[in-house]
């Protein structure tokens, strides 16, 4: 991992088309601005990890329950 120390107003370039700017520093909160092509996905890590975890949970499927649910949907 590369660690860089930046001040408010400083920037970091990733590749030639992604820029991270330190917009504000207030206490222990840092506001970041990110310039990147819209094709580059950017998410708070917690969200990404939640999706990852939910995908893993999704592997454990109870087929019986799924079939029961399908029956219920048919009846409605």
């Amino acid at each position, binding site marked *: 991992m590369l660690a860089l120390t930046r001040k408010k107003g400083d920037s970091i370039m990733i590749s030639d088309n992604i820029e991270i700017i330190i917009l504000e520093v207030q206490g222990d909160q840092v506001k970041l601005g990110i310039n990147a092509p819209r094709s580059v996905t950017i998410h708070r890590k917690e969200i990404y990890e939640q999706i990852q*975890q939910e995908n893993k949970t999704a592997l454990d499927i109870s087929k019986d329950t799924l079939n029961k649910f399908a029956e219920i*949907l048919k009846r409605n």
Partner: protein
Amino acid sequence: MLLKTKHFEEIDIDENKLVSFEETIPGFPNSKRYAFLFSEDETSPFCWMQSIEESEVAFALLNPIYILPDYSPNVTVEELSVLGEIDMSEIAVYNILVVPKKIEDISVNLKAPIVINLQNKKGVQIILSDDRYKIRHNLQQEIQKQQKGGE
């Protein structure tokens, strides 16, 4: 080609119908191609997404149209650019189901739908910035809500 599946043993599938996920599904970096398996019952809202590389990786998917006709995530063409050139009328949207033993706990991930470009068979799991939708949307509550609304 013969495909070893998690829930249906070995089946024969058309290799040309596989969907490729260049940006892999979060949590599954080793699965780049999936077979979509549909039920013989055309009215079924469910289908399966089976990994080619990892036979243990298989997801049950919901076609949201059947249960959530108002599900309309705001997705821009740029967000889907990993799928190549997009014709918005040629995309399919599915949501991954979580199906535990208790039927009351069945939920669907509306926050991160699977989007497929039907023209080039490329797929991606998009994480929506749309705040309206949850990672765990309970389906039984949804059905009950709809039933109440109908009365």
